[in-house]
């Protein structure tokens, strides 16, 4: 169960105290060692993950290569997109150091979401942040690599 001493996170900051309390009933605290996976690419996540302390790396695997989207610290929420869409995760999240987490079973989270549709506003804010990060990565790649002639790719 989460307590008032838990650090703020990007999802809970937009939720009402009642919904936070409801979610808190299913929340569990856990830790992941350095190098451990919080979210695995290609796997449907079973838990929503809130990073309370530590630092993680977010990557997108592509045919043997790994593209790093960036790092994240306390307050970041993971696996929300995959849970809401009912799909496998597109990204992989790896602990760069020992991390403490709050985890919520995906099914319980979705049940609370169904009972409290006003939660979608908070979901939208988190997803929008994730999309912004992905789009920013794409724009950065596109801007940095000069337009090429012939077969060389600008985006590779």
């Amino acid at each position, binding site marked *: 169960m989460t307590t008032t001493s838990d650090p703020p996170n990007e999802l809970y900051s937009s939720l009402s105290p009642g919904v936070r309390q409801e979610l808190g009933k299913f929340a569990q605290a856990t830790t992941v060692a350095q190098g451990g996976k919080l979210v695995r690419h290609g796997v449907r996540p079973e838990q929503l993950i809130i990073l309370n302390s530590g630092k993680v790396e977010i990557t*997108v*695997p*592509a*045919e043997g*290569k*790994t*593209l790093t*989207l960036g790092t994240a610290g306390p307050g970041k929420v993971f696996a929300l*997109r995959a849970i*809401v*869409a009912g*799909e496998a995760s*597109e*990204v992989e999240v790896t602990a760069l150091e020992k991390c403490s987490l709050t985890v919520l079973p995906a099914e319980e989270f979705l049940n609370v979401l169904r009972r409290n*549709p*006003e939660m*979608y*506003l908070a*979901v*939208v*804010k988190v*997803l*929008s*942040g*994730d*999309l*912004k990060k*992905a*789009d*920013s*990565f*794409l*724009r950065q*790649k*596109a*801007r*940095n*690599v*000069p*337009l*090429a*002639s*012939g*077969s*060389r*790719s*600008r*985006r*590779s």
Partner: protein
Amino acid sequence: MAYNFPIIEDCLRCTFREQRVFCDLPREALVKLQSIKATSVYPKGAMLCLEGQSPRGIYVLCTGKAKISTTSSEGKSIILRIAEPGEVLGLTAALSNTPYEATVETLEQTQANFISHPDFLRFIQEYPEVSMKVAKQLTHNCQCAYAEIRSLGLSNSVPEKIAKLLLSWAEHPLKYTGPQKKSQEIAIRVTLTQEEIAQFVGTSRETVSRVLGDFRKKGWVQIKGATWSITNKRALENLVTT
């Protein structure tokens, strides 16, 4: 008729509503949407959003297509993707109250519904169904962005990239009304110029022209103005490694 499509001003009567993620709303929310949106028809080349501009609001693309682009370090335009009807444009900027991160320019005559920034924020706060639709749109957009990121990790050649683009367009073929055609032929309407295709795949216009010429010679595509026919889809698929 001044426009090549019927203008739908009443969202409650729109026949496309159920096919569009954002617009398929309960009646009460639709009535509200109808009262806060402004419908406009734009010519080809109209700028809906400008990169760096404060978010004035969002656009729901009703008819037509728009290119979403940014500028390279060399000052050249780079097309990030093409927005299709039903898409909501300017979402992340409006939700985070930060400047538009890309420029949105219409590729053809386009109808779009504009909702001002304050009205949009009130709309999603008052109607959970709307924020649910926005969440759906964002999960889709995230999925597309991650797919694009994955493709960055692959060293595709320009012919592969153009083949991939043609195959993605082939997913939305033109409804064929002419004489009997070969069963494997797929007709598509191409709104991008060769220069814009070059901006999309990251090469020069000359290379696009050469690659398309090669595809034509091999009998994989036929090009007649804006109507193209994919005559050998299998060959294009074989070229694409992903």
